[in-house]
């Protein structure tokens, strides 16, 4: 290869096309910025988790279980000889502030010992944490509780049968981040007052936590020796390492989903740049033919433009890294409630390398086909322009390019996606969306060609004809702008539908009050209590805690000991189930296999029938007729699977994985959950206040609180998605500018010629405005229709909710897209309009000879 020639030519080409290349670079850089920005955020969070995980866990080892630890477990712990131990008993309860009379479901943490052993709990007033265990009936609370209950430090907080003084607020505690505390703010009290509150009874939902400080050298071997036994005893272990992994994994999954939106922007940019590069390369055919006739070899020519592609890719990658810096500032602020740690953002070499690799990859995808075309340009074209006008690479080469393009898109999707199947689905979805947009653009061009208005004014005919004439940019513009609008509008529509459904759920006669931990002897009095206050009891379901003792005669412990089981199966075998019993099937349930029971049977000397939820049945590999042994608080209940149900979990109803007939569980220790409806918000607040006095152990959750919490969380995530979608829209606009720039010389020549031939300025302006408007309408129309279709499919099939479209928002979005597209499109050749016919003639000659 002639290196000197290649370098010199590449430098000169870059000089002449730098504006166009800058636009191409910008198209790709925006998508790269999103992908590497999230990559950097993920790396930063992982780094912060690694640094802070010991403080976030507050100990070296944490044990959690749904029941007080058994003697065997305590003996094993004693053998570990921890330096320090601390316990927390955690449960949900209602809290009442006496002065304001306001109540709220809270997350009670009853603490004993020196937790946390690492890090510090920051309180206001300061140093109140250390005094909590010694002080008389004091409570520390999350700041949100004070706001929600209109309380202040010094107020009395009623928990069950005990009154605590609010001694301060907890500003910072290990492992706390906003989302959890929105539904149930935390209240910290000393464990010695727990019995006094009367809140923990048989059947109450309680989590028992034990924190240990242990030298790492002792912890490792102890874990290896005891992990399985503790697993069998349903004790969940968490070490600093596993905590790190859990935190990083859950955050990584979220950012990877967001990263897919970035990848969509990058795909869009790549598609746009690819079409721009094709035009650029087509314009180079003559120059390449001349170079070839002067003695340049095909590989020299390919090397010149490959070098340009590499420069473009690297520059786009670096620009993407620079553009991601503002994202690194915006994202933590947008997602503060879902970030597990405080992060100090930094740009790592790996991030920069990722950006450059993405840039190079995307450019390779854009340039591969056009480079093949360039290598096939015949030198004879320098003599005869009619020969080799459309240099086309051999068919085999084209097929290879298509395969490479498809595979690289697929590889990028799978690399970015949280799971390979998600990546595959995403790539397929993207291909379908792009395919539909491209097909729509082609179809529209064909329809216009056949049915173009023949009697309309000249400017109108000419403007519309520009959409289907040779070298039109209908396809790239429709795909780029349509795709950007499609992304933004479909995301917005899905969010709107989900929120609309939730708002509907919280209105009408649907349940808006959930009461749980209702003891059997409280069921009748509670009904009366609710009725007195105008609340309507809609559903009541008994809850019986049970564990899976054996499946088809094989004990769960045995299976758990048996070796490598999938994580989900381990969880299903080990978890505590909340069983219920009833005679009838609910509206939210459908039998998919077997039959519901006949309530007249008393099942004496028979196996108890059990109905399993279909996903759980699948996970446990259960079919009709399989035997299950349940351990119901020390008593074994033998059952046989007689039906499998599909459950609509989206409904605010008492849904269960496992249901048995009343005869099976009526006598078991149990509590109940009650769903009620009370329309008036003030009356609901008053009911909850009175509830604390009359039924201190019963907790109530106002559905509007859940709605607000979910709304706030969705708003955070959807804002993040919208920011990304805006980047996509930015890519679309950059592509539009690039497309306009690519077609500029063509349009310029036409406009100049028209001016010379006598067209008035206003005619030229009208032609260009018509073209831009028609193009904008097509892109915005196809994009919005496609977004509605995609949103409907997502809402209907994935969320299984009724579809609701935000028509006004969509109209504004579509019109704005149309307007911007039309404006940018008509800017392309404004110079031609500004020239006098004399100057136009000169310029026309110049363009005629040097348009390449």
């Amino acid at each position: 290869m002639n290196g000197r020639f290649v370098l010199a030519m590449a430098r000169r080409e870059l000089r002449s096309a730098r504006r166009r290349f800058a636009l191409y670079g910008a198209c790709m850089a925006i998508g790269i910025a999103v992908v590497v920005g999230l990559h950097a955020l993920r790396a930063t969070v992982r780094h912060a988790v690694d640094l802070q995980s010991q403080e976030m866990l507050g100990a070296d080892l944490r044990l959690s279980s749904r029941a007080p630890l058994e003697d065997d477990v305590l003996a094993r712990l004693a053998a570990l000889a921890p330096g320090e131990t601390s316990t927390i008993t955690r449960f949900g309860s209602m809290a009442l502030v006496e002065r304001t009379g306001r109540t709220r479901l809270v997350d009670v943490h009853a603490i004993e010992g020196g937790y946390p052993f690492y890090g510090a709990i920051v309180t206001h007033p300061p140093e109140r944490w250390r005094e909590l265990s010694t002080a008389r009936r004091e409570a520390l609370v999350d700041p949100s509780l004070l706001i929600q209950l209109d309380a202040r430090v010094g107020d009395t907080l009623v928990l069950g049968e005990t009154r605590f003084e609010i001694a301060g607020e907890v500003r910072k505690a290990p492992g706390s981040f906003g989302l959890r505390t929105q539904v149930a703010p935390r209240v910290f009290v000393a464990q010695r007052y727990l019995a006094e509150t009367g809140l923990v009874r048989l059947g109450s939902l309680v989590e028992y936590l034990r924190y240990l400080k242990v030298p790492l050298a002792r912890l490792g071997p102890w874990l290896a020796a005891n992990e399985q036994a503790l697993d069998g005893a349903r004790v969940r272990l968490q070490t600093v390492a596993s905590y790190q992994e859990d935190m990083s994994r859950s955050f990584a999954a979220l950012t990877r989903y967001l990263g897919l939106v970035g990848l969509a922007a990058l795909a869009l940019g790549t598609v746009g740049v690819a079409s721009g590069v094709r035009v650029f390369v087509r314009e180079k055919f003559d120059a390449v033919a001349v170079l070839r006739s002067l003695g340049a070899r095909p590989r020299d020519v390919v090397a010149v433009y490959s070098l340009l592609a590499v420069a473009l890719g690297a520059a786009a990658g670096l620009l993407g890294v620079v553009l991601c810096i503002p994202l690194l500032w915006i994202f933590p602020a947008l997602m503060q409630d879902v970030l597990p740690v405080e992060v100090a953002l930094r740009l790592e070499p790996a991030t920069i390398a990722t950006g450059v690799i993405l840039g190079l990859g995307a450019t390779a995808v854009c340039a591969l086909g056009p480079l093949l075309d360039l290598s096939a340009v015949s030198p004879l074209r320098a003599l005869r322009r009619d020969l080799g006008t459309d240099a086309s690479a051999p068919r085999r080469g084209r097929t290879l390019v298509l395969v490479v393009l498809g595979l690289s898109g697929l590889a990028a999707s799978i690399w970015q996606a949280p799971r390979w199947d998600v990546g595959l689905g995403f790539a397929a979805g993207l291909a379908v969306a792009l395919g539909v947009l491209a097909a729509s653009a082609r179809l529209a061009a064909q329809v216009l060609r056949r049915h173009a208005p023949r009697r309309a004014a000249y400017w109108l005919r000419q403007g519309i004809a520009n959409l289907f004439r040779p070298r039109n940019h209908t396809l790239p513009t429709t795909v780029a702008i349509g795709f950007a609008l499609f992304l933004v509008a479909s995301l917005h529509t899905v969010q709107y539908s989900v929120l609309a459904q939730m708002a509907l759920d919280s209105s009408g006669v649907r349940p808006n009050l959930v009461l749980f931990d209702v003891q059997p002897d409280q069921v009748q009095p509670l009904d009366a209590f609710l009725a007195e206050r105008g609340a309507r009891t809609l559903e009541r379901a008994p809850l019986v805690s049970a564990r899976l003792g054996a499946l088809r005669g094989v004990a769960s412990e045995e299976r758990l000991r048996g070796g490598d089981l999938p994580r989900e199966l381990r969880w299903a075998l080990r978890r505590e189930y909340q069983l219920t019993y009833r005679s009838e099937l609910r509206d939210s349930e459908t039998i998919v296999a077997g039959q519901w029971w006949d309530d007249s049977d008393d099942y004496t000397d028979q196996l108890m029938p059990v109905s399993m939820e279909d996903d759980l049945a699948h996970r446990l590999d259960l079919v009709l007729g399989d035997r299950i042994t349940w351990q119901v608080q020390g008593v074994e209940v033998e059952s046989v699977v007689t039906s499998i149900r599909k459950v609509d979990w989206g409904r605010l109803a008492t849904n269960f994985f496992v249901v048995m007939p009343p005869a099976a569980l009526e006598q078991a220790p149990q509590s109940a959950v009650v769903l009620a409806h009370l329309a008036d918000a003030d009356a609901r607040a008053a009911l909850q206040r009175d509830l604390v006095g009359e039924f201190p152990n019963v907790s109530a959750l106002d559905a509007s609180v859940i709605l607000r919490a979910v709304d706030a969380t969705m708003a955070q995530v959807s804002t993040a998605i919208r920011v990304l979608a805006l980047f996509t829209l930015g890519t679309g606009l950059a592509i539009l500018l690039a497309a306009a720039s690519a077609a500029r010389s063509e349009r310029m020549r036409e406009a100049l010629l028209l001016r010379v031939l006598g067209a008035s300025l206003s005619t030229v302006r009208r032609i260009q405005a018509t073209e831009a408007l028609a193009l904008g309408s097509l892109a915005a129309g196809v994009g919005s229709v496609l977004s509605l279709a995609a949103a409907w499919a997502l809402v209907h099939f994935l969320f299984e909710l009724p579809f609701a479209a935000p028509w006004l928002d969509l109209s504004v979005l579509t019109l704005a897209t149309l307007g911007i597209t039309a404006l940018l499109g008509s800017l392309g050749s404004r110079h031609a309009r500004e020239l006098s016919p004399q100057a136009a003639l000169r310029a026309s000659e110049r363009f005629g000879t040097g348009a390449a």
Partner: protein
Amino acid sequence: MIVARNLTQRYSRPSGGETLTVLGGVDLEVASGEVVVVLGPSGSGKTTLLGLLAGLDRPTEGDVRLDGIELAGLDEDGRAQLRAERVGFVFQTFQLVPTLTALENVLVPLELLPRGRAPEPAVAELRARELLGRVGLERRTDHYPAELSGGEQQRVGLARAFANEPRILFADEPTGNLDRATGHEVADLLFELNRERGTTLVIVTHDLELSQRASRIVHLSAGRIARIEQP
């Protein structure tokens, strides 16, 4: 210098069916330093013949020896190298690279020379400037083609054609896109440069005036040599 035997070129129509014979069994020899003009009406096969003689295309039948080298024995790269080292071109439509300045256009053939034969960059630039000065464009070296008149563009084309000191120069209607006076000037320059450097020159044209300055005129008609005359 050039020996062509039974040169035949056929093209099949894109729609299929019959093939089109553009050139049929042409035999031609051009001696070193000779100036040969190929004359003929449009469609007579002049440009095809030029393309085949210069190695820009492969004949359907027949062969060409250029400066003692059999073109049929060379692959695409080999023919490109031969052109870079021994051949120069002047085109009817000038064919300057629009993104390069006049100087850079003239530099291209020097940069394409293989290592060992390519002059140092400073030497190459000096030679390109000299050539541009020779064609009267010393003040237009940094101008782009779009900033030059047709006559000026063809002068740059001439400077570029002689830059690599070719042994054979092919000119395709070199004055075809120029007015009479400018065409005269360009033709004068072409012949002067040719004389100075002793280059073999093959010109394709239908300009009779230009043909009178050749040492031999080859008349082409319907893809065959009708006659050869000396002016």
